[in-house]
């Protein structure tokens, strides 16, 4: 009996775990009102772009992740610092904030955040926000196309014996 639940818990545990990291002194001067939702929305659309299924922002992943973040200690600060870093890099390399860049440019800045060369706080931002965005996005049935058609019940899988 859920004797072996642990692996299943991994998804959820990562999403709800409190964040432990060194908050930089500079964070005190960050916008206290909230998160730069334009940058966040653009960033999530780079991680989860539109193809035959909707983009992250089309499924409101950015607003859901902010709402989710307010329940977790340090989460909003992590968002603020990570997004500010994306904007700084964008200005440094392309002289425009992240949201104003072309998709290709945004991908290049995003790649910088994903590498081990990025500051540790940015690495944490990238991995945690990516994980949580995917978790939230793939909770929505619009994202399931090409995998499953609906929740597993009430129909189940009568074809469970067929390979393929």
């Amino acid at each position, binding site marked *: 009996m859920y*004797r072996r639940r642990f692996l*299943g818990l*991994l998804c959820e545990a990562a999403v709800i775990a409190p964040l432990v990291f060194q908050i930089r002194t500079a964070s005190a001067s960050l916008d206290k009102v909230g998160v730069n939702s334009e940058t966040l929305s653009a960033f999530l659309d780079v991680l989860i772009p539109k193809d035959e299924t909707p983009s992250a922002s089309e499924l409101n992943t950015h607003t859901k992740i902010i709402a989710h973040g307010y329940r977790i200690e340090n989460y909003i600060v992590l968002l603020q610092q990570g997004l500010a870093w994306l904007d700084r890099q964008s200005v440094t390399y392309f002289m425009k904030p992240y949201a104003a860049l072309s998709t290709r440019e945004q991908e290049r800045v995003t790649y910088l955040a994903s590498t081990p060369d990025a500051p540790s706080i940015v690495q944490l931002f990238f991995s945690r926000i990516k*994980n949580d965005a995917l*978790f939230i996005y793939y909770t929505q049935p619009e994202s399931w196309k090409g*995998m499953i058609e609906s929740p597993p019940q009430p129909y189940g899988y009568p074809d469970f014996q067929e390979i393929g």
Partner: protein
Amino acid sequence: MGFLHEDYDVVIVGAGAGGGAMAWALAQENIKVLVLDAGPAYAPEVDFKLTTQHWEDSFPAKYKSPAVQFASHQPLKKQYKGLRSWNHLRGLLNTSNERISFGYHRVQGIGGSSLHYSAEAHRMNPHAMKMHSRFGVAADWPLTYEELEPFYAQAEEVMGVAGNSAHPPRSRWRSTPFPQKAHPLCAHSQILSRGFNQLGLNLEHNSLAILSTPTDGRPSCNYCGCCLKGCSRMDKGTVDLTYIKHAVATGFCTVVPNVSVKRIETGDKDKVTGVQLVHEGKEMHLRCDLLVVAGGAIETPRLLLASKSAQSPDGLCNESGQVGKNFMETLLWTSSCFYPQALGSYKGTAVDAICWDFNDPDAIPGVIGGCRFSTSVAESDLLGPRAYATRVVDGWGLDHKKKMRALFGSVLSVSGICESLPHEKSFVSLSIDKDESGMPLPVISSYLDEEAINRIAFMSDKCREVLSAAGGGEIFEEFSSYDIFSSTHVFGTCRMGNDRGRSVVNRFCQSHRWANLYLVDASVFPSSGGGESPSLTIQALAIRAAKHIINRSG
């Protein structure tokens, strides 16, 4: 609170496998029973989420899970770095240098942990019931498989167990066929069976309390794979839908959820007289003529130890000093890999196939204690897009989305679970911290000795070999009890035995000292078995204990 003003022949604390089976067996004989549980009642069609977009969530507990503390922080050794838990996207799942806890997982509520179990319905391997006389470890069961067999058959009938009567698990003779025909193997298990066969091993139909034929007003399974998330279809044999439903139908059983028992009271002549309980925020007293405790191998010793008094200064039933000792846990290894073809690997019953070839206690070379292997896509929760997005598929952007569609349903997963043997450093005790009712929290101390680690190492080797032989590709995730404590099956903390100096209850699960107190859960197991799921054995022991009570009262 009307239940406080009624008289009952028997009060049962805990509505899981042991408490439910006991209630059913007593109520059938017109014995008036009250069943109390600390958790709520569940309505499967309403409470479970399998028809909603949130179906991938884990079991939807309707209460704040009671705290259990973990005291052991066993250092991890470099020589066993190959036994660490990891995921290819996340790295080590335990980044520290000591063993950590992911928790003790159970459901409190009417039906207990059967609400989230995979419905495995196993009989104990008779060879694993004589561990002390054969190998000098653990303790012998004070009863034989032969004595337990009729009660196994009864339990299987009530739960609706499906299995392959032509090939029952090794060493377990049967007096009756399985009540239900075995479920066909899913595609994933068909592929894995090729790997087992390549290695000269046998992957067989697992015996499951899941209906293959509509019975008792419940439908047959439609193979959604989500047994562990709460079966909204109700084909899974949970204790609330089987034992408790039929016990209540007799008119002799009353079930009250959300009642926490915090203390057992005793009187003269070595008799239990009642319990202190908390219901709707109020402390109350309930008189008992006969008390059955079925809280599991953590909560039962907790309650006994918390019930110490002048008559029992070391805790109730603890004259032997064995309450809380001999703690045995789930020792597990899981490997999951990619498979180069779409399998629909998320379909099927949760654990439809099992290998018993190493289940005998001397089957693993050089180590005492056996193990089993089984398919584990569902138990690894590799069932839906969310799990794939965060644990299986790497990258981001368009490439990630394409891979999601390409890889979905293309994984293999296999687990081993092995014998857990008592160790002096593994036990359950009481914390100085207390819960909201003022009851001390339980503390789990767990230690893995070299033998336990060697068993895990054997399982890791074998799981990897099986995946490779089955044509599996790169392994992307492994989970190990070596570096992470994570148990649902726990045993042994109120051991049964014939020697009252070395055990807590006798062969009928009756306290050696308190004649009107019975314990019916896995706390009484003298040994864990070689990976058998304990639920059916708990049920069989409870029905047998009920017969003892009936015979006494008759």
